[in-house]
């Protein structure tokens, strides 16, 4: 069995499961945010049970339109707060303590290897980087799981991605995943578990693994997953709030497809409008001027990402035709960035340094684009209207490229500075 099949089997009390099989499995953690939780709460109340299945395994994180951007958003956030108080939920994160959900939960050790996690947010697949099975579902799924502690799943086929060779300078997890999505397309892994493996992955740091698994959904994947190893152990020890277990894939596991990539041939990669699969080498896009650069999101808002952007901005200025917005993903990342003097680098460069929020990634707030404007962002989607006006454009890249572009006022690589 693959690691995915093993985790699913254990959570439905079976010795074995196989792709296509429909199972009802126990979940270790259920999460929702200020957009999806209000519907989940409404549906949960319709079920008519007196209590939630476990008050310590439901995480409500107001991060999308929080800090509350307007009255309607404030009303939505209040629904989460009121419910969390009423049911005494221990994993409600108030503004000032919250962070972007998929950065916050791994950082706080609230998702651990071997877990089965569902979240009413498509980027829940991020936690596969820890060797957990994690997948995005809808609000009604979350409502049912809040009552029963269970969720229905079709066991996915697994697709293996093997990365070998040395990464080029400034190339990271974001480039690997954008390149992969560019290769297989936005439905190239539809309904499948994407298992990332190979010698390059074995030495890839955790923040880059989180970035890769985060974007599995952008290829249509049900989940992304990496078999846990020493790097995983190093990351989770000292953080894990629960016991964890490492699973691995058997050598005779069945994969529906295997893809191999020579990383030495993967360039700094940018996804052009309006699909993440529309990838081009960054060096071919130097004619694209930009109005805004965004560093942050559940994809690239961790301290390592902030450091990469700061490395570029140190002693440099944001281009006079461009705005730069830097958003650390959690309070801990924010504090660390202050301690390391990174916040100062950004402010001196003429960039915004913001409190944690999903904000502009989904066109919510904190950096919305006007008609005809163009942004480069370390976020995950570049659909029509994603960051604002339906006639605005988003280019996706890693933090080095986004920061270099902020300096140049056009898409640029660090080597050009």
């Amino acid at each position, binding site marked *: 069995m693959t690691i995915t099949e093993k985790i699913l089997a254990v959570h439905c009390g079976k010795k074995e499961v196989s792709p296509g099989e*429909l199972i009802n499995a126990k979940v270790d953690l259920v999460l929702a945010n200020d*957009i*999806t939780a*209000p*519907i989940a709460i*409404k*549906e949960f109340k*319709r*079920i*008519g*049970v007196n209590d939630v299945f476990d008050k310590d395994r439901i995480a409500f994180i107001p991060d*999308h*339109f929080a800090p509350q*951007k*307007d009255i*309607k*958003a404030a009303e*939505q956030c209040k629904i989460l707060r009121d419910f969390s108080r009423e049911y005494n939920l221990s994993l409600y994160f108030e503004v000032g303590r919250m962070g972007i959900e998929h950065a916050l939960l791994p950082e706080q050790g609230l998702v651990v290897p071997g877990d089965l996690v569902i*979240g*009413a*947010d*498509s980027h*829940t697949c991020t936690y596969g980087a820890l060797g957990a099975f994690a997948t*995005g*579902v*809808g*609000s*009604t*799924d979350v*409502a*049912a799981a809040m*009552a*029963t502690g269970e969720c*229905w799943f079709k066991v996915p086929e697994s697709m293996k991605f093997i990365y070998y060779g040395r990464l080029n300078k400034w190339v990271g997890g974001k480039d690997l995943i954008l390149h992969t999505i560019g290769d297989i397309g*936005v*439905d190239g892994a*539809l*309904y499948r578990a994407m298992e990332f493996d190979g010698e390059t992955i074995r030495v890839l740091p955790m923040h880059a693994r989180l970035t890769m698994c985060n974007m599995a*959904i952008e290829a*249509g994947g*049900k989940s992304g997953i990496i078999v846990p190893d020493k790097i995983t152990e190093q990351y989770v020890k000292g953080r894990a709030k629960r016991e964890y277990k490492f699973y691995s894939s058997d050598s005779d596991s069945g994969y529906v497809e295997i893809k191999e990539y020579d990383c030495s041939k993967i360039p700094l990669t940018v996804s052009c409008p309006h*699909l993440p699969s529309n990838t081009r080498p960054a060096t071919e896009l130097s004619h694209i001027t930009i109005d805004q650069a965004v560093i942050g999101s559940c994809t690239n808002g961790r301290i390592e990402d902030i450091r990469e952007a700061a490395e570029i901005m140190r002693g440099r200025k944001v281009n006079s035709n461009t705005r730069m917005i830097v958003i650390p993903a959690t309070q801990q990342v924010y504090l660390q960035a202050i301690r390391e003097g990174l916040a100062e680098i950004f402010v001196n460069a003429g960039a915004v340094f913001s409190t944690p929020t999903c904000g502009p990634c*989904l*066109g*919510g707030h904190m950096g919305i684009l006007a008609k005809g404007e163009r942004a480069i962002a370390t976020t995950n*989607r570049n*659909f*029509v*209207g*994603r960051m*604002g006006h*339906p006639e605005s454009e988003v280019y996706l890249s890693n933090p080095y490229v986004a920061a270099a572009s902020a300096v140049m006022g056009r898409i640029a690589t660090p080597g050009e500075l």
Partner: protein
Amino acid sequence: MIFKGRVWRFGDNIDTDAIIPARYLNTSDPAELARHVMEDADRDFPKKAKAGDIIAAGSNFGCGSSREHAPIAIRAAGIQAVVAKSFARIFYRNAFNIGLPIFESEEAVEKIVEGDVIEIDADNGIIKNISRSEEYSARPIPPFMQELISAGGLIEWTRKKLRVS
């Protein structure tokens, strides 16, 4: 169940930001969401679409975010059903969970033209194109999904399972 209505055609990879842009997600009120349904794919759609209409789209319909607001907005706009070559995974779950009828048929989507009137026979997986006197088959709905539909959605199914009266 039979669903008969006029068709609106859309292409491949219609994402949830096109179905209901995130700028309207500071509410979950179905009527308000319906006022902006499919707006970023076709600006006039909320005005043009009438109750009882059907959407036919290409592959990977509903890709992107997990927002249940997408199928909710479609249903609240009075759209009876969605036919697509394929659906993105979370949208597929959400549609069945909330009781929005969806059907997969490459053949139907290839041949249906905007404005055609079609009749979907959900029980037998047959899509009749009344305007063109053609007939297409839809992929059979898996037994568990049928169970969800006959229960009236995931919440009712869960109530039944938990025996909540």
